């Protein structure tokens, strides 16, 4: 028998890892040994079917999962999201059509949609001139003459309801490293806005203004500026107190800084240029619609790798939360959208809240947003109140990720890279669910944002994905 290892144990100080009774760790520590106590929880929260799938994958995988995951992570980390242009959805977004309405989250039809999403669809149809009033829009939406589809099926993402229609201007964000592209509408600001299900005249008027005035100005300014390197900007905003999902103040400021010198050179009436800059300045979340497609084109590059357990999409439509795995392209795994644990704007409370909605969770999927919570102490109130809570959120995410970002770093963690590349095996095994920062929409269409907070995704989506993975990739 080979006794080398045992003899080397006899020859070294005991450094133990304790799983189970914490007193065993305490005893050893009190005796002067170094011991790491694992905060052990039953794998898969004790779900035997999930545990079986995990073991199947561990024992009889037909593919080299580690190699596949390394490649997936390499692609996410190596992505180079770059804002290249602004286009019109119908001309640029693949598969876009006049009778098509894209929405956030996994696919869903009109009859199943939640209030805010229905509101946004109504607004979208009025905006397109397909209906002249809300009633007509509802009838049309229910008639079957309008098709609905997930933004994700068109390389797009949308915050909250995520409604995108044919005439809307969209950011075009290209992943220079891998050649794929992602699209997202321009952020409309706060208050009564389409993404929260508002469709009043002021909402439609603002959308029209964005289409006719803001988008052309930004497009021209971008042309003068040249492509915007989003990877560098996201790296910077994490060092300026943003996490790129619930806080976008630094990111919006940087975009204004980048574009302002070019905007002022444009051949438009001064009032229009000023109005554009004022709009950007008044909207802290303007950057969100850039951070999202940046995240989207980063993770999309990692989709479809045979045998990879890395999560490449997370998204919610207000009814369901869905994920996709790199190794199971085209398949959604869903569970009910969660109730958000958050803080409310004056006059609103949990009874007003819609369920978790929107594609903005793509930021967490790409390794920032809630995963970079430690970088955003200014919004710790959303996660429990203290900076320690924010640190704990980020630190717990390392346990479910396969890598750390080389570019996105967190000053307070001694510039440690953000946790990146969520491995569904680790999520199921540890029961640690991805931490997601999010805004809260009013459950009735047309009212808008009522708060923000932290939401837990449904565990069963991850378990189902793992089981499907096991059935495809094990003997």
């Amino acid at each position, binding site marked *: 028998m080979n*006794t080398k290892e045992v003899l080397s144990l*006899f020859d070294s100080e005991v450094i*133990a890892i304790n799983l189970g*009774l914490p007193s*065993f760790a305490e005893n050893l*520590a009190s005796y002067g040994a170094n011991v790491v106590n694992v905060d052990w929880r039953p794998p898969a929260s004790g779900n035997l079917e999930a545990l079986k799938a995990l073991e199947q994958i561990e024992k009889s995988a037909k593919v080299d999962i580690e190699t596949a995951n390394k490649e997936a992570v390499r692609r996410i980390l190596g992505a180079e999201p770059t804002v290249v242009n602004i286009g019109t959805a119908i001309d640029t977004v693949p598969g876009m059509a006049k009778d098509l309405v894209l929405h956030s989250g996994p696919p869903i039809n009109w009859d199943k949609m939640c209030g805010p999403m229905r509101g946004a669809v109504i607004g979208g149809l009025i905006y397109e001139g397909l209906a002249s009033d809300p009633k007509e829009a509802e009838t049309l939406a229910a008639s079957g003459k309008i098709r609905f589809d997930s933004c994700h099926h068109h390389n797009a993402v949308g915050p909250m309801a995520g409604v995108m229609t044919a005439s809307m201007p969209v950011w075009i964000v290209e992943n220079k490293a891998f050649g794929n592209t992602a699209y997202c509408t321009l952020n409309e600001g706060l208050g009564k806005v389409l993404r929260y299900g508002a469709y009043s005249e002021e909402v439609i008027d603002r959308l029209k203004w964005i289409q006719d005035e803001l988008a052309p100005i930004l497009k021209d300014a971008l042309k003068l500026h040249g492509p915007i390197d989003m990877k*560098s900007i996201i790296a*910077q905003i994490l060092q300026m107190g943003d996490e790129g999902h619930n806080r976008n103040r630094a990111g919006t400021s940087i975009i204004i800084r980048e574009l302002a010198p070019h905007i002022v050179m444009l051949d438009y009436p001064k009032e229009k240029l000023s109005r554009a800059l004022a709009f950007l300045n008044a909207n802290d979340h303007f950057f969100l619609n850039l951070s999202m497609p940046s995240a989207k084109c980063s993770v999309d590059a990692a989709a479809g790798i045979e045998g990879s357990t890395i999560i490449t999409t997370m998204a919610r439509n207000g009814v369901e939360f869905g994920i996709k795995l790199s190794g199971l392209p085209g398949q959604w795994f869903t569970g009910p959208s969660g109730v958000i644990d958050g803080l409310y704007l004056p006059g609103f409370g949990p009874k007003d809240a819609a369920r978790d909605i929107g594609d903005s969770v793509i930021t967490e999927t790409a390794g920032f947003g809630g995963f970079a919570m430690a970088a955003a102490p200014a919004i710790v109130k959303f996660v429990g109140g203290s900076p320690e809570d924010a640190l704990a959120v980020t630190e717990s995410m*390392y346990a479910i990720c396969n890598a750390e970002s080389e570019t996105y770093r967190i000053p307070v963690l001694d510039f440690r890279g953000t946790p990146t590349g969520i491995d569904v095996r680790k999520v199921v095994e540890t029961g640690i669910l991805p931490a997601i920062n999010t805004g809260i929409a009013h459950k009735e269409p047309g009212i808008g944002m009522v708060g923000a907070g932290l939401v837990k995704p449904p565990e069963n989506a991850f378990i189902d994905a793992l089981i499907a993975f096991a059935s495809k990739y094990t003997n």
Partner: protein
Amino acid sequence: MKKISLKRGSYYDSVFLMLATRELKGIDGVKDAIVAMATPMNVELLKNLAYPEAEFEGLGPNDLLIAVDAENEEKADMAISKAYSALAEKKTASSRSGQTNAPTLAAAIKLEPEANLALISVPSSFAAREARKALEAGLHTMVFSDNVSIEDEIALKTYAVSKGLLLMGPDCGTAIINGKPLCFANDVRRGPIGIVAASGTGLQEISCLIDRYGQGISQAIGTGGRDLKNPAIGGMTSLLAIEALAQDPDTKVIVVIAKPPAAETAEKVVKALRKSHKPAVVHFLGAKPGRDEEKLAFAANLEEAAMLAALFAGGSKSTEEAKITAHSNETKERYKLPDRASIARLAAMEDAKLSLEQRWLRGLYTGGTLADEALFLAHEILGGVRSNNQTDPEWIMEDPTKSIGHCIIDLGDDFFTSGKPHPMIDPVARAERIDIEANDPETAVLLVDCVIGYGSHEDPAGILVPVIRSAKAKAAKRGGSLAVIASVTGTDSDPQKHGAQAAALEEAGAIVMPSNYRAALLAIEIAKLACSGGSR
């Protein structure tokens, strides 16, 4: 020579860049270095330093520049790669001494890459998987959890042995590695005796006795109860442990304790011990001792095993010499096996106080192996003792909660512990049972263990004292006397302290014997007298 390296589209904070610059400047053979973002100002600076202008085409503030002026190409390349690695350096929480916490095994290994041992005490259905992961990570593994399937145990041990790793357990309660007590273990002296034990309290008892005899332990390896007993496992862990102890320069004597193994496994153990060329002591609980060899002694009980090991460690040249010393009346007190005559005297004194109806021995144990040692002895001498640990099917207790006749009860048995803490951790259930036995006017003698050390209750004697007092008072009230015989398994270095525990028990009126074996002998002797009418 001046060399430039570029990485487009990678933003770094200026503090990082300055640190990297400083690091490069410190390299021998590097005259100057700049690590910076390609801002117009920095580009201008580099141009002024006569770096080739062509290199700076189309660069912007989001592009990383590493400019090195070095003695030669090789030095320059080295500096550049150093700059990249400095910038890419990953930061993880630094490891601290004492106890740290981690959310998962994988995270724990990351936190403590030098870890060499995993302790697993998770619920049974998850234990095998955690053990496999620990072994896969190259950790020696101790599985405290029980009820792991035999198939899992075979698979785990086969894998462990193939990697040369120790898999202690499943159902392994005790080990001492490099002087560190694991799970339930005592603070014993370090010394030249290596132990391989299939039983927890057996290991505790023998290591504490060795300590009391002035000797010490090099390593004590628990194997789990089935390792030697089950022919399909065939002693995989025991044999690896014996071989390692054989090669360990700090181990001079090897002790093996287990329940009787299958014949061919026993043969393998004996062969491995012979091959070690070290003196060895073997005790198979409840079995007749095997045939002694020159350097291989079979012990009849735990106390004798400890003593023989101590004698070998102290210089005895052969089994014969050690046994003569152990059994001789001439030997000084420390190395002396119990003297039957003095035990008989003590028993007669206790028996004289009993009332006529008091007849039965009631042993109430928290330690399984200690219960077994008393049971085998009592069953043999008294001819019929009921127990939940009985191997003689005629005498297995139908209802372990009800004592009939002589009984030795293992309160750490699954029957009593499912959903409750083990009585070594929480001895209250045993105290309640003592009270029940004390209410039985036929109880003559109460035999108890008191296992201290790491993992055990902070003051097990303290729990026993009031209930012993009240039990004795009840017997006195009925006109008799209850004999209470105890032993304390532990050392004075244990947190609870052997001396203090023994003193507290004596204060309460118990007779504290120096070993479980002797306590059992005395209690059995009293019961024998009581049953036969004795001196009354």
